[in-house]
């Protein structure tokens, strides 16, 4: 039988291709990825009366709720210049990371129907779930930028740094989505556990308060750990671009490092289990 297989150059069914071929196959499905994520994004709100208006209403209401709690009721704004812009940027940027994780965890399981019938590189699924999250971020920017302007910031050339900052964060989020997608496909309980992890991460990422001011009361290593945390890095990067004030240069190095490391590790981690995603 081995001789037969060799003579006619048969391929093992469902065999995982090498990384390079896999990437090429993935690139070949780029049109599918785009169409699939756009369609998924539209479907998310199709059952409501206001429909696509929720793309804008959701971030607006989020910003309102958090401002009420942390700005008005708890007075967290201690030591922060332009707290409203600070808060809104923090929430929207962190929400991108959060929804990439949640989308990634469900990427395989919510598309079991597709994986049962069609053969395509499964990496398509986490990539599209991350694109859905990115599209939502772009919508929330439409709310975010006017808020930043209204609260007293002036447009400056540094605002352009928003683009590379989001690009780096997208790479980081995609890597996260790959990792959590593989775990989520194997352990169905991931979706139950994930919200708690994300909430913890949200609270230590300096979204509602300034890490700088907070860490002043604690030891040096607390400050280092809080600042190296990628959740905080990307938030701080966007704040540095949009809000005036002094920021450290090391932020960019951290952002680039996290983006490349997590994306590469996540992609390889996901690719390794390619053959197992079909089995449900």
């Amino acid at each position: 039988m081995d001789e037969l297989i060799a003579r006619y150059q048969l391929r093992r069914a469902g065999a995982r291709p090498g990384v390079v071929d896999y990437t090429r196959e993935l690139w070949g499905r780029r049109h599918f990825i785009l169409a699939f994520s756009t369609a998924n994004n539209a479907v998310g709100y199709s059952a409501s009366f206001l429909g696509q208006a929720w793309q804008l209403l959701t971030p607006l209401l989020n910003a309102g709720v958090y401002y009420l709690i942390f700005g008005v009721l708890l007075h967290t704004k201690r030591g922060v210049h332009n707290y409203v812009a600070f808060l809104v940027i923090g929430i929207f940027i962190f929400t991108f990371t959060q929804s990439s994780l949640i989308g990634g965890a469900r990427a395989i399981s919510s598309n079991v129907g597709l994986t049962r019938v069609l053969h395509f590189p499964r990496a398509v699924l986490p990539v599209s779930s991350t694109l859905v999250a990115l599209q939502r971020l772009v919508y929330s920017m439409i709310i975010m930028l006017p808020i930043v302007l209204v609260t007293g910031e002036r447009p400056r050339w540094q605002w352009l740094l928003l683009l590379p900052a989001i690009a780096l964060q997208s790479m980081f989020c995609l890597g996260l989505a790959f990792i959590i997608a593989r775990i989520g496909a194997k352990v169905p309980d991931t979706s139950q556990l994930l919200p708690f992890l994300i909430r913890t991460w949200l609270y230590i990422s300096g979204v509602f308060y300034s890490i700088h001011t907070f860490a002043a009361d604690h030891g040096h290593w607390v400050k280092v750990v809080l600042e190296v945390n990628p959740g905080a890095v990307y938030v701080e990067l966007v704040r540095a671009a949009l809000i005036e004030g002094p920021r450290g240069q090391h932020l960019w190095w951290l952002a680039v490092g996290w983006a490349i490391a997590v994306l590469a590790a996540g992609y390889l981690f996901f690719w390794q289990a390619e053959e197992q995603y079909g089995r449900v």
Partner: protein
Amino acid sequence: MSDAVSEASKDAEPTVVVDDVHLVYRITGRHASAGAPAALKRLVQRQPPPGMREVHAVRGVSLIARRGEAIGLIGPNGSGKSTLLRAIAGLMTPESGAIYTQGQPSLLGVAAALMNDMTGERNVVLGCLAMGMTPEEVKQHYDAICDFAGIGEFISLPMKTYSSGMAARLRFAIAAAKSHEVLLIDEALATGDAEFRRRSEARIRELREAAGTVFLVSHGLGVVRETCGRAIWLEQGRIVADGEADAVVGAYEARHDPQAVEERLAAAAAGGKLWSAADEPSSA
């Protein structure tokens, strides 16, 4: 007619080689007993969750399919036919043994769940893109697919509003838009009205001529006899018989549906045609 094809291809090159394959489903079921406290106790004592069950669907199947063959897979419900097709399509990894194929086989089945919240139009585009077509190819095929499905203005409504027959028509139309080296057809003809069935059988014949090898899972034994040269009889995940379609189907029918044999003999004696549309098995 297909007998001639399969006879000519006795020494043709193999397109699918299945080597002692076992297929197992792992299912995380509902934890029926005793609720959360018991589940936590199990977790602490490191017992496997009782909800995790294994279903050994295919137990040691070996076969070689050659270019130009049309092979019917028959057997009662739950005998592992569809599972075997999924594995040949590369959508499921064997527990042990291996499957080798030429090119990328394509599975055409009724279980093809598309995106229910989206309109038929969007499903056509997404389905074609997922099969690896370029946007230009999708544009070329789009009208033909809609015509073939023949569901009229429903095409612009979400798929969850479709009847099961309409959904099946659209799925079949999408999947059959492309021709493939190895084509795996899973009960694709079971739904749909008589007119659509006739059209889809014609389409399958076309696809078979373009394809190297066709596997057909069907409970319609008449369809297997008519379109396949070779048949494989599966029972509880094992091959019972593998050979010329008429002989295998005959043996299967004698075992599972003796009544149909009698009726057929009576009909033949009465000078009626050998196979009628009512030739459905009652293998449950």
